[in-house]
């Protein structure tokens, strides 16, 4: 007999039995270094709010003013009647900030990848993707009719091999896609080498810098970090992480933006940002430019935490950024550690197999510019205690 909706409950129960369901813990107030999670006071180690802008007075003020001027909603799709002057102002601001000709925003970074990649490459083209790229790149690539080649993480020899093989076939276009900063390990894409190879083999470069913005290149992202702002053809980003607000973005040439306006279905068929989101995003970029010390504090905290946690005996893998994982081994231990951290008032996320290799389960610690030394020492003390208790260090 044909199935009706009973599969929903059945599959959920199955996942629940295997411990695979996502248990949502809600915050009782703003996201900042000290939060209240389900009534419990915690230090926040699991948010992408690196620069602590999510509750910044300038962003709040900008959002409130925008609501007063423009109302709560945009009223339509961007492409039809939803674009307001404040959206256009945001696009201009992004382009300035990223050092590109033009820019546009998407509902989310996911929507940018899912809507743009399939339009950039089709039959007869080749998309080359790092094995650890974010799921939204993977899905965008999957939606394309192009051939797809995956290379081992940051293995430039393997990337060159793909490009070499690509030269033997007459692909119409070749695009290399990579995260700027990899979200599970906190390492940085070797953009200088990727750029060299791309030039040599006539390939384009597509970067999703979600975890690099606000962090690398004085906060401007991976383009500035490697001095390749004009050379990266497609720059995807987000306001939802270090910039503390919400929404995805695309920066690049004015041809690219005109192309995206007319071809990217996730953009064309979605409503525009509520005006206060655009306003908060503009304010976020201004704050990053003005309060230079913020990015510096983030890095100071990162360096201190990384050095101290390593001296406790924890393995931080290949971390090069404020994502500092503590690799503890098997999945069970990582989950246990996350639970115990929460009991001790530290909110952190366990990342387990198959997100990472079986023996590389970890806690993903994310630094914040506004942690003070006392916060970091509290975290380190708890780690020291639990590390011994769980026989990790």
């Amino acid at each position, binding site marked *: 007999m044909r199935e009706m909706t009973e599969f929903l409950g059945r599959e959920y129960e199955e996942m629940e039995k295997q411990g695979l369901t*996502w248990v949502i813990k809600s915050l009782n107030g703003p996201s900042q270094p000290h939060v209240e999670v389900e009534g419990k006071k915690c230090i926040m180690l699991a948010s992408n709010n690196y620069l602590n802008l999510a509750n910044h007075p300038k962003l709040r003020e900008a959002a409130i003013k925008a609501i007063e001027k423009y109302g709560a909603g945009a009223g339509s799709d961007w492409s039809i009647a939803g674009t307001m002057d404040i959206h256009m102002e945001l696009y201009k601001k992004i382009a300035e900030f990223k050092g590109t000709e033009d820019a546009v925003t998407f509902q989310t970074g996911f929507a940018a990848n899912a809507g743009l990649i399939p339009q950039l490459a089709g039959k007869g083209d080749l998309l080359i993707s790092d094995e650890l790229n974010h799921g939204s790149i993977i899905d965008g690539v999957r939606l394309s009719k192009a051939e797809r080649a995956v290379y081992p993480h940051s293995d430039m020899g*393997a990337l060159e091999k793909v490009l070499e093989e690509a030269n033997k076939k007459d692909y119409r276009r070749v695009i290399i896609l990579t995260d700027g900063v990899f979200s599970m390990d906190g390492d940085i894409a070797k953009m200088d080498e990727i750029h060299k190879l791309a030039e040599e083999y006539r390939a384009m470069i597509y970067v999703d810098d979600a975890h690099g913005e606000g962090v690398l290149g004085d906060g401007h992202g991976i383009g500035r970090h490697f001095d390749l702002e004009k050379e990266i053809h497609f720059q995807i980003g987000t306001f939802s992480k270090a910039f503390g607000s919400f929404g995805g973005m695309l920066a690049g040439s004015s041809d690219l933006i005109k192309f995206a306006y007319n071809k990217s279905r996730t953009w064309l068929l979605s409503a525009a940002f509520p005006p206060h989101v655009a306003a908060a995003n503009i304010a976020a970029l201004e704050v990053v430019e003005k309060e230079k010390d913020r990015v510096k504090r983030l890095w100071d905290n990162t360096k201190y935490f990384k050095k101290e946690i390593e001296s406790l005996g924890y393995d931080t893998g290949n971390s090069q950024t404020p994502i500092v994982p503590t690799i503890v081994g098997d999945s069970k231990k990582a989950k246990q550690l996350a639970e115990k951290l929460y009991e001790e008032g530290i909110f952190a996320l366990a990342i387990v197999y198959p997100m990472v290799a079986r023996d590389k389960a970890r806690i993903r610690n994310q630094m914040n510019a506004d942690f003070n030394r006392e916060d970091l020492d509290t975290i380190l003390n708890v780690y020291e205690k639990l590390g011994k208790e769980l026989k990790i260090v």
Partner: protein
Amino acid sequence: MILTVGFIVNPIAGMGGRVGLKGTDNVVEEAKRKGAKPVSPFKAREAIKEYVEKYNDDIRWVTCSGIMGENILRENGIKSVEVIYNVTSRDTSAKDTKNACKLFVEYPVDLIVFCGGDGTARDITSIVGTRIPILGIPSGVKMHSGVFAINPRIAARVIHEFANHKLTVGDVEIMDLDEEKYRQGEWNIKLFGIAKGIVEPIYVQVGKMSFESIPEDDIKDELAEYIEDEMKDNPEYVYFFGSGSTIDYIARKLGLSNTLLGIDAVYRGKTIAQDLDEKGILDILDRYPKAKLILSPIGAQGFILGRGNLQISPKVIRKIGIDNIIVVATPSKLAATPLIRIDTGDKEIDKLFAMKEQMLVIIGYRLMRVVKIQTNNI
């Protein structure tokens, strides 16, 4: 549901190795005369001891009497042991293995764990076929088949993970020395058939942290679709289909009659020759100068050339050209052997592969992955 495991130890497996024999098949007496000592009971004991100490899930063990299984289980304190086959003679033989396997099939057990080498795997597969998955605790002289764990301790972990549904069942090749050729002085590892082995599941992410394993056959369907496109796009080429389980599946999916253990030729969507030897392949290459060769890693070590397909000789490879070799593999095969190995017996050709260092392997529909190559040159 409690897992039922059929456990069998081939007490003579591996004895030939230390005394320079290429196996223990048919040469037990010679091995013993040369002073060979049993190996497999130690390996089996190591695996079971590790299993009991570290994991000890609720498993029902079904086994053979005495040295063929029972002793090792009991001495490690396993209570749930049922002996369903009695070894009558002191000198066990392939016949004992096969008879016990018949009873395992009748029982039926969910998994057969054996301790032995390629010869034992062959004996078991000859009875069990693809009905029951097989896991080998490595102990033989030759272990080219895809059913073996890397070492006895890993075998213990695999049993545990299979019992807890973390691993799944997939096609693996059974390989062994071609004894006929060996007696004529030729070292030839031949593909004997397909068994079910325990493999890593293939996961796709469905939620932020939730993953779904996709059936191996879905991936093979994708590979078939890719090969179908490839052949349509290049109608002037003749395609040689290599041996092994993955390529066999692809060929059948495309409606081609295929030789599992041999090389077939396909032109414009039709099989034009089957089970070709070297000369047969060369004849076709004379008639059809444009050719591609589809290969997949077979057996335990990830060989695409040099094991189980010697009819693809250096001469054949030269004529086809190494750039016309298409390698396909399921992600679970690549998880087991993350290297592509090549041993053509021809230094120049091996060197050509060695210089490539890595190759693109087709792992899904229009999806490739860069994989390292290993040859004897390195």
